[in-house]
């Protein structure tokens, strides 16, 4: 079975590999960052598959800390006036509670700033309302250079960070090199963003049998889960999917004609016109106004939309029911109870978490 001649030829190769591995590990000892222990909520660990952490960007203590520093640093904007946190405030579940955010030049965008949490469980890795960004690292590239957002030049941003008194050393500790580029900057920000986990709302506590729901909240949950009433669960998760979103793209009947075609602009398929990502319904208490264009100021308006405000269009999702009558026709009591349930998914621990504050 064995071939001694062959073995003799293989030995020097293995020896070289062994020596090379030894050399590499000696160098890495100086700069090897500490692995970051992502604290995954019990319900997430029980119910969901593992979060997505790219093999080329593992979470480390140093990388997450660097990403956090960058997230709150106005150095990333063209005129030094805004950071990521300007539009993604941790106290507001990483939104700015504005219909449209205002960029460094005072210009408004056309989309509502999305909240940031549980992003590592976006299994399709399509980010933004229209899914135009693939992967968190890539997503972090765009706002920096977007002329109506941070309006910066990545080359200049990189130079500024390279010249900064402390950043080069932090990059050295996080990535083993102090030569900074945009790839490493976005990797660090993405690491921080993956740690933004929201999983301790009242409803989570209810599922963990640590508290009980009021009758109104319980009825609201039943409305949410009842295909003959709210039928919200097909797109927004359930007690078995603690993300409370499918992270897919739907036309939920907001408009009969579209000024913003959303996902259709990304795929180039007219059948995707008017589709936008289902947002998670966690933390709604902190993230008004609602929808991709922030058109609804209150949860009552949102619920009324699904109840009697649907507008028919060619791409409206088949899950939108009873369109001829404008929607699912909820009673006043069911609407109030549905709102009560939705608010049980707001997570005060998340918005107060000191690890996520500046």
């Amino acid at each position: 079975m064995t071939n001694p001649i062959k073995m003799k030829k293989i030995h020097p190769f293995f020896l070289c590999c062994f020596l090379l591995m030894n050399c590499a590990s000696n160098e890495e000892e100086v700069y090897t960052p500490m692995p970051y222990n992502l604290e995954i909520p019990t319900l997430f660990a029980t119910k969901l598959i593992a979060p997505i952490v790219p093999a080329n960007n593992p979470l480390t203590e140093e990388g997450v800390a660097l990403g956090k520093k960058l997230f709150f640093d106005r150095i990333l904007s063209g005129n030094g006036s805004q950071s990521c946190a300007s539009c993604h405030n941790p106290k507001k579940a990483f939104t700015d509670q504005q219909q449209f955010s205002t960029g460094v030049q005072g210009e408004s965008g056309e989309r509502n700033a999305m909240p940031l949490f549980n992003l590592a469980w976006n299994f399709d890795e399509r980010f933004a309302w229209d899914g135009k960004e693939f992967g968190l690292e890539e997503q972090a590239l765009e706002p920096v250079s977007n002329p109506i957002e941070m309006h910066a030049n990545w080359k200049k941003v990189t130079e500024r960070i390279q010249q900064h008194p402390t950043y080069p050393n932090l990059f050295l500790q996080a990535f083993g090199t102090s030569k900074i580029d945009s790839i490493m900057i976005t990797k660090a920000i993405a690491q921080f963003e993956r740690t933004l986990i929201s999983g301790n709302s009242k409803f989570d506590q209810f599922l963990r049998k640590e508290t009980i729901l009021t009758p109104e909240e319980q009825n609201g949950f039943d409305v949410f889960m009842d295909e003959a009433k709210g039928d919200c669960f097909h797109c927004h998760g359930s007690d078995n999917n603690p993300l409370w979103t499918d992270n897919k793209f739907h036309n939920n009947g907001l408009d009969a004609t579209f000024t913003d075609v959303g996902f259709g602009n990304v795929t180039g398929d007219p059948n995707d016109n008017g589709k936008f990502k289902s947002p998670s319904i966690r933390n709604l208490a902190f993230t008004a106004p609602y929808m991709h264009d922030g058109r609804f100021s209150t949860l009552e308006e949102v619920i009324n939309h699904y109840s009697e405000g649907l507008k028919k269009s060619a791409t409206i999702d088949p899950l939108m029911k009873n369109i001829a009558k404008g929607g699912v026709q909820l009673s006043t009591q069911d609407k109030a109870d549905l709102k009560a349930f939705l608010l049980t998914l707001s997570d005060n621990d998340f918005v107060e978490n000191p690890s996520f504050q500046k």
Partner: protein
Amino acid sequence: MKNILTFLCVSIFIFSSCSSEEENINITLNYTHNWDGVPITNQDLNELKFTNANGEKVSIENLRYLISNISLLDAKNYQLINFSENSGTSFNISNLTNGTYTLSFRFGFSDEDNIDGAYQDLNSVSFNVPGMLGGGYHYMQFDGKYADNKDEEAGFNYHSIRAVDKTNPDNLKFEDTSFEVNLGTITVSNNMKVEVKVNLAEWFKNPNTWDLNELNTVLMPNFEAQKIMSANGKSVFSLGEVTP
């Protein structure tokens, strides 16, 4: 060090030489879809281009379904087939030996396997059934549009689950409407591809002509509709080509 390396290399060589070709036959099960014999793919979504047995024009927007207990695999197995995203339609079964096998699977989960919240991958893609309907998982989500009897487009949600009779909400009665699909025997001698044909028109046709004007949405809690789906589903699947 030299001895360790020698041992490693010899071990790897012996290990890789152990399995004979006869014991390592792979087959690929490939689920192809058609509408009454006309092949369709996910490039055929969103258009009212099909006609069902009741004469309604129909489009497909989202279609995914679950099969389990595939006979050539271990007893406990399942596969989510997502036609609209073209995922899960083809999968490999390895380490078979020469012989004749019965090819069968179950559409959906049997009650025994339909355990609420137990499957992380299915929870992660929101394939669950609400607890008020007994929990567990969908067997199928088939969403699309049809031209109604006023010739206006309307949506349908042909969602198949374990049938539940909610006549008495305090005493739900269940009927296992998953079903076994037996495609007969196949002879395995070499690596091969086995096609399973899925005729979507059958969901609306045989033995019950499905009227989308009557049965279109809110079908999950409809006990009788679920039983009709189960009956119609039994003619959906058939054995296609077996190729080397």
